[in-house]
């Protein structure tokens, strides 16, 4: 066709009926056809992308995400960055102060336990430190509030505070407000974007930065998270503490009116604030050691390989990477067990499936169809039916043991234990996956002409040689397809191992489910899931290369 077009090029381009060049007309038709095809596919593609691919992607992303430390203790993490853990010295006083303020806010928002359990994955026992500290952190602040309120009773009133801190007609520090919105939002995993009338006064933020910041934090929390108006409510006890601390050195000369009056009165309050390092060490002596600081610093980055390291029984330590303690190394073993048991299941499926597929492929059609029902019926039967059937059969008081006892093969007193162990999982899963092996084998074997075997035999081959040298090599694609299919399916199995596997016969999937629903260590679950998915996709890619997804046959 292109030849014809070229030849005609000398006489000008060939025209379509409507007068446009044929080439362009064809291209347009092709484009329209492509567009129509895509239009038909689009609804489903978008549906699958939005409700399946993206959710899985974002779930797997949790395996590297680690913003909880920086979100809960933003100031501490920032100040701790310059601290050298190997120096053997405790962090500077400023770090302790930042920790006190951060932890107070976290405890008010009830987020400190979440941080504790996150760090506990890396350093066992640290969660109790955070729980304990969260309970006692407000002791000092309460004392400060009492001292301030008894000396200047006006501070008992939330409206006094509001009038003191709110910009009103003055200049507002909107940068501080939006920064605190961001901080509270990140702390609570929300947007913290609700409406509020409060804006911190720029003047106050200059003179009393820490107090204004703490008050703004509280006001944002109160308005956006609790949905209450900060104008009439008492702030956290943290604010009076910050005020008393700052008034010791603050210069109030720039203030006038009520503000100056109130703050001068407050400046006269005599309240001793011990160094924050002592305050924290009083709450829990562990704050006086290097360990918690080291742990926080090591795991403070926004992204972490920590979950993946945990997934392979390693961990991130201040000195670099190391193996988990012996008694916590279970996941590599579990991966190994999942792989080995999947291989055993695949091999037993090959062993059991090959003779059956051969028989089905070589029997007359009518007989083969009849026997095929015996393969297809389990295939179509509910997974839970088959699993419950195996539970019934394999139990110690179950059918198989009863038969064995009745035959006298097994003593009534020592019935075989066939369930809640690896044996149970392997038997039940071999049964469940066997049809997935037989069907592809059968479809390949059907294509092997029987005359080849006859030819081999007439050339003098024995039955065995004829089978092994002629028939078997031609049936290998079927074995390959079936094996990969069975292996892919078995490696990610959850239901059957959960019911018949006990503790010894469970797979990595069961561990993922445990971390999602019981231990709530979602990062680790995501890391385990990513590794499992990578293995499955690799196998799927092989399957696609060998068999092609278009050739998957059902039923």
């Amino acid at each position, binding site marked *: 066709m292109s030849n014809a077009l070229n030849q005609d090029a000398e006489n000008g381009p060939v025209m379509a009926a409507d007068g446009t060049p044929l080439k362009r007309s064809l291209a347009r038709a092709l484009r329209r056809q492509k567009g129509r095809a895509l239009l038909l596919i689009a609804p489903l*593609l978008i549906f699958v992308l939005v409700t399946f691919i993206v959710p899985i992607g974002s779930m797997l992303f949790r395996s590297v995400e680690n913003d909880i430390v920086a979100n809960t203790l933003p100031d501490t993490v920032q100040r701790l960055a310059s601290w050298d853990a190997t120096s053997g010295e405790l962090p500077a006083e400023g770090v302790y102060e930042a920790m006190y303020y951060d932890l107070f806010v976290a405890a008010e928002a009830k987020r400190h336990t979440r941080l504790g359990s996150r760090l506990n994955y890396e350093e066992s026992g640290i969660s109790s430190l955070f729980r304990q500290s969260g309970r006692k952190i407000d002791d000092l602040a309460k004392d400060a509030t009492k001292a301030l309120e008894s000396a200047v009773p006006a501070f008992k009133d939330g409206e006094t505070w509001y009038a003191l801190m709110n910009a009103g007609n003055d200049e507002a520090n909107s940068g501080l407000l939006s920064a605190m919105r961001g901080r509270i939002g990140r702390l609570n995993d929300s947007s913290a974007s609700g409406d509020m009338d409060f804006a911190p006064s720029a003047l106050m933020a200059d003179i009393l930065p820490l107090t204004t910041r703490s008050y703004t934090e509280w006001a944002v929390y109160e308005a956006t998270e609790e949905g209450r108006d900060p104008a009439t409510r008492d702030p956290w006890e943290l604010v009076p503490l910050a005020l008393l601390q700052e008034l010791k050195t603050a210069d109030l000369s720039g203030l006038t009116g009520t503000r100056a009056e109130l703050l001068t009165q407050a400046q006269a309050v005599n309240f001793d604030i011990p160094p924050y390092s002592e305050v924290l060490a009083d709450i829990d002596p562990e704050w006086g050691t290097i360990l918690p600081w080291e742990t926080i610093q090591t795991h403070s980055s926004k992204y972490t390989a920590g979950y993946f390291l945990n997934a392979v029984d390693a961990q991130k330590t201040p000195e670099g990477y190391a193996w988990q303690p012996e008694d916590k190394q279970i996941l590599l073993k579990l991966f190994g067990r999942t792989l080995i048991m999947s291989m055993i299941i695949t091999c037993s499926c090959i062993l059991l499936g090959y003779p059956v597929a051969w028989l089905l492929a070589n029997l007359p059609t009518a007989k083969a169809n009849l026997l095929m029902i015996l393969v297809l*019926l389990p295939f179509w*039967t509910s997974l839970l039916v088959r699993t419950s059937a195996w*539970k019934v059969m394999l139990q110690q*008081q179950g059918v198989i043991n009863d038969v064995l006892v009745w035959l006298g093969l097994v003593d009534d007193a020592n019935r075989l234990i066939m369930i809640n162990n690896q044996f149970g999982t392997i038997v039940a899963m071999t049964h469940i996956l066997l049809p997935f092996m037989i069907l592809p084998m059968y479809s390949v074997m059907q294509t092997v002409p029987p005359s080849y075997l006859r030819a081999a035999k007439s050339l003098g081959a024995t039955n065995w040689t004829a089978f092994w040298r002629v028939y078997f090599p031609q049936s290998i694609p079927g074995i390959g397809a079936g094996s990969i299919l069975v292996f892919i399916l078995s490696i990610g199995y959850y239901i059957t191992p959960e019911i018949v596997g006990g503790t010894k016969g469970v797979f990595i999937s069961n561990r993922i489910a445990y971390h999602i629903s019981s231990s709530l260590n979602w990062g680790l679950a995501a890391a385990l899931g990513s590794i*499992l998915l990578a293995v499955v996709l690799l196998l799927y890619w092989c399957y696609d290369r060998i068999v092609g997804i278009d050739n998957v046959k*059902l039923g």
Partner: protein
Amino acid sequence: MGLPPYATTPQRIWYYSFRVICALIFIFLITPIIVVMPLSFNAENFFTFTPEMLRLDPDGYSLKHYQDFFTNNEWQRSLKNSLIIAPFATLISVSLGTLAAIGLSQSHVPFKGTIMAILISPMIVPLIISATGMFFFYSTLGNWLETTLGLDKNFVGYVKVILAHSVLGIPFVIITVTATLVGFDRSLTRAAANMGANPVTTFFRVQMPLILPGVISGGLFAFITSFDEVVVVLFVGSAGQKTLPWQMFTGLREQISPTILAVATLLVGISIILLTVVELLRRRSERLRGIVES
């Protein structure tokens, strides 16, 4: 295949022992399904054959587990839930899946391989991974539907599970319908268009009747996938959407009751019906497309 008259003794032995081996494998395949049937008529709450049952004593048999299934509220509610969720999920997967399969079978589809891989992926990705991914996605979506749109909590629960299940059914529809479309004669639609039919009429009057067997069997696969699914519904659904498999799963894990065997027997009955329908459809499809039964 038959044994020739000149076969030697070892050949005879091998011939018969091979048959015996195959028979044993068939027994292995079918026994678990057969065993649950008589056990479901057990008069006792045991999971094994009682001496009365073995003596074929009528007193050893009873319908009480079936009675329990049909009168127990929890079982009935889970059956009802399954019968609500599966058809809707099937409807979504079949309608979207058939359209996409027709699109995919056109001759010039850009990125065909990638699109196919994405659409098949729900079948390949291990269920536990799909379930956890969907868990996070649908809890956010559910919250949004409940708070922003003010929808009923129970209704939102059903929507979540139905959407999740329809994604799982899609690969089956795609595979069966594209397989039917492989043998589809394009000149038929061109002929219809030639005679003045618009694309919609062509689709419903010419193409649809021919690919219908594939669509129905894809739909049956999607239905059974949803009807039999437990991992995703465990994660995405709440107690109000407890389906039959979920109820069986908790039953097997916690208080194992013989009612499960009665349910299992009923489900085997359903699968026999489905198997027959799919087989009949396959034959009809081959006949329609002019593929001669070998």
